[in-house]
């Protein structure tokens, strides 16, 4: 509970985590490197198949496990990669290509297909999207059957043979091993970058992702492209391993297999799905008499996982998060640290609402509202239920488009219907119920607020280039500072869903602070907090505003409003009932009446 002890803990926990994280991979890598010593070609083939499946699954893991898209028909990437590489090497469509170039082409076709399959995800709901991926997989197989000249139709076509040093046998084995290791490294890099965290935010709390400025469309397209490329490359390798491919090698069952491997492994993990893929590749070999039943077993495993351990293997292996937490935890914010968190004081500015009106159907939610939020001020917005408080906040944060009226920042229009653009204007917000990623740690949740600050690109993150490391270092430092300012740095590595409600509130505020906001919009932050916590929250809010941030506080708690606000606006039935200082409002007869409903 003492702050001096707290900072030491997270550092220890982190270095332990890094070792824990590397150990299994080192073990797997050693096994892979040394396997050829057994000189057993049967085992070698199984291992190669596992590597190839993992290359595809590593990419699919980003789509399913991180981005949360139910892409069931992903086998189409394997099919396309396999046939592209095979056809180009065999010269059925064009003059024969060199196998390595054909493999690259397979990856490129996979990337393109990934984008085509992925685009509907931007507009369709979960089940619809799952269906379209299934449809796509069927189409690809049908085309493979029909385009006899190029693919050999139902009869099939020979797969590519790679020349030395990766020729069939142990040479090709090491080729698959190296590419599998590369796929692991690249996807792990991306997963632990700001893009990986943004994906998880999109998956579990899209609203939080928007508020943090995540550009969902661009990011998803990039992920689908990358994952498709991996799938295409896996397809080319697959065609070579099989040495002869036919359309019925790419079944719906196979597609589901990859998908199940990731879910059994657990979303948001790299190791889990890798283990899942290995298990699913190896299982039919050991369960030889049950080979017919292998898909049945996979499906039964999936059902068991969904019903019993939705977090998969990764959850089972997560010992860190089973250590008990201290019982009587207190949140002790340290407002003196806010200067570092919020950075340079912003020049005086204001958000202005002029004559805003918004109706839903026949209901006038907001009916001619004027409001001004100034830098350095705490502006309270109160009113009975249905008065339009939260609706107003939603208009300012870009979720609703008003029917009439102006919304301006320093005289320039703020765009409507673009909540994700607010981060760029350094306008941050919190929500009535804290919107956090439960399965991620507190620190990772706060880091999501730093997504827009990174300079490194998607590709730089995949390849762990210097700017990626600089971004990560800077975001982590800023996140720890924000957590220290709200008083929660001792819980940095704890899974967010283990925290109490009041702690989650403050975590959300820390995330909002990561934007170094010029304006902070708080939606009923006091709900569910104890009296002491409300006092500390109030002190924190005041301190934030004294650093120059303009705060809009939508609240029910009259005490908090009257204690800390510089100005108060009272809404009733969508109109401004009164506006002024807290003292003026308290004495205002009509306000009292409105609240008491007389």
């Amino acid at each position: 509970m003492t702050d001096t002890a707290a900072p030491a803990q997270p550092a220890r926990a982190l270095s332990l985590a890094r070792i824990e994280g590397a150990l299994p991979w080192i073990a797997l890598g050693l096994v892979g490197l040394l396997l050829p010593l057994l000189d057993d070609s049967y085992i070698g083939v199984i291992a190669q198949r596992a590597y190839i499946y993992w290359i595809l699954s590593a990419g699919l893991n980003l789509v399913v496990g991180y981005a949360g898209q139910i892409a069931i028909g992903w086998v189409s990437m394997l099919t396309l990669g396999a046939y592209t590489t095979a056809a180009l090497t065999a010269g059925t469509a064009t003059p024969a290509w060199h196998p390595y170039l054909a493999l690259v082409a397979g990856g490129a076709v996979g990337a393109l297909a990934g984008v085509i399959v992925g685009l509907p995800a931007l507009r369709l709901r979960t089940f619809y999207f799952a269906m379209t991926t299934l449809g796509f997989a069927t189409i690809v197989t049908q085309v493979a059957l029909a385009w006899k000249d190029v693919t050999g139709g139902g009869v099939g076509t020979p797969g590519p043979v790679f020349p030395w040093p990766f020729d069939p046998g142990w040479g090709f084995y090491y080729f698959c091993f190296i590419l599998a290791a590369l796929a692991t490294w690249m996807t792990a890099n991306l997963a632990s970058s700001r893009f990986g965290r943004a994906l998880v935010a999109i998956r579990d709390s899209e609203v939080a992702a928007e508020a943090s400025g995540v550009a969902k469309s661009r990011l998803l397209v990039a992920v689908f492209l990358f994952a498709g490329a991996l799938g295409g490359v896996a397809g080319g390798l697959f065609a070579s391993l099989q040495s002869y491919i036919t359309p019925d090698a790419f079944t719906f069952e196979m597609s589901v297999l990859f998908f199940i491997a990731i879910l059994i492994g657990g979303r948001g993990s790299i190791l889990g799905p890798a283990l899942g893929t290995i298990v699913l590749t190896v299982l039919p070999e050991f369960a030889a008499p049950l080979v017919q039943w292998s898909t049945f077993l996979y499906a039964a495993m999936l059902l068991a996982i969904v019903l019993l351990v939705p977090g998969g293997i990764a959850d089972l292996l997560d010992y860190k998060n089973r250590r008990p937490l201290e019982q009587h935890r207190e949140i002790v914010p340290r407002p003196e640290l806010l200067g570092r968190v919020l950075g340079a004081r912003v020049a005086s500015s204001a958000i202005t609402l002029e004559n805003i009106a918004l109706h839903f159907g026949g209901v006038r939610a907001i009916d001619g509202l004027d409001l001004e939020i100034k830098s350095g001020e705490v502006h309270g917005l109160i009113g009975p239920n249905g008065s339009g408080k939260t609706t107003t906040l939603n208009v300012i944060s870009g979720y609703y488009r008003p029917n009439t009226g102006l919304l301006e920042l320093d005289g320039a229009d703020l765009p409507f219907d673009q909540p994700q653009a607010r981060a760029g204007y350094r306008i941050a917000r919190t929500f009535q119920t804290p919107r956090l990623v439960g399965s991620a740690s507190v620190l990772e949740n706060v880091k999501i607020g730093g997504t827009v600050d990174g300079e490194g690109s998607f590709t730089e993150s995949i390849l762990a280039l210097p700017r990626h490391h600089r971004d990560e270092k800077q975001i982590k430092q800023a996140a720890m500072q924000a957590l220290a300012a709200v008083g929660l740095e001792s819980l940095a590595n704890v899974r967010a869903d283990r925290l109490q409600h009041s702690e989650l509130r403050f975590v959300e505020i820390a995330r909002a602070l990561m934007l170094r906001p010029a304006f902070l919009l708080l939606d009923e932050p006091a709900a569910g907090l104890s009296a002491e916590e409300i006092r500390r929250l109030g002190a924190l809010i005041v301190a934030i505003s004294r650093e120059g941030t303009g705060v809009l506080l939508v609240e029910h708690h009259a005490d908090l409003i009257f204690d800390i606000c510089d100005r108060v606006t009272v809404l009733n039935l969508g109109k401004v009932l009164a506006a002024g200082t807290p003292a003026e409002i308290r004495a205002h007869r009509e306000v009292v009446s409105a609240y008491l409903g007389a």
Partner: protein
Amino acid sequence: MLESILSYGLAVGAVYALIGITYNVMFSASRVFSFTAGMLGMLGGVLGALFIAKMGMPAIVGFVLVLACGAVLGLVTEVLTVRPVLKSIEQHLYVLSTLAFALMVQQLTAVEWGTEAQPFPRLIPIGPGWLDQQFWLPMLACAVTIVGLELLYRKTLIGRAFLACAEDSYAARALGLPETQLRMASFALAGVIGTLAGFTGAEMLLAFFGNQSILNFYGFVPVALGGMGSNRGAVVGGLALGLFQQAANFLVGGIFAAVAVFVVFIIVLLLRPEGLAGASAARRV
């Protein structure tokens, strides 16, 4: 040729429409899209062939038994894969649990029944031609289902309870309606409709375990296009899909017909993600 397109098209379209209605009934009761619709259709044909052709039961007995199995499977779906995940807020779990169950059943069928498509017995010996059973049986089933559902929803209290739960499940619960029992009944009903679709369409589609994937997709297209929960939309969408598919088959050949369907499906969905007769998205903040 036109005659052929019409008869095959409307017949298979009726099967697709019924599968779409199966999806809708499960969705209305639980807000869950279940992967078991195609499974039910597939089993309608397989179990029908099993009971009537292999085990020699009289057609009527076999038919009733198939529908009963459908009801039981519907109940199992609700209890095993829907109820446990309804409490969770994670939408993807619904998709996965029903998918897993449907897959298990499909694989079981593949192992026990075999992976070859088997012929479905002729039940009514009216010769080939447009009066052939394989054409009018599915259409009759579709018409009976539509009329039956209308009567259920308009004339019975339980039917109106279904509509109430579909519209506002919170208000239904507060009013004291037996939510769980109604949901179970809906899934059992969906089971009956799905197996009915598969049984009546099996002469065309054959008793084949692979029908599950086919019906999952082609039965979903009418729902996607006609709007979730809209049975009228499912019927119009299903019949249109059947006709379009048959026409494309004749004009450009089987494989490109499949591509054509998929492309149209994607285009419509991208333009109107809620379908052609859908409702607007719910409030998120």
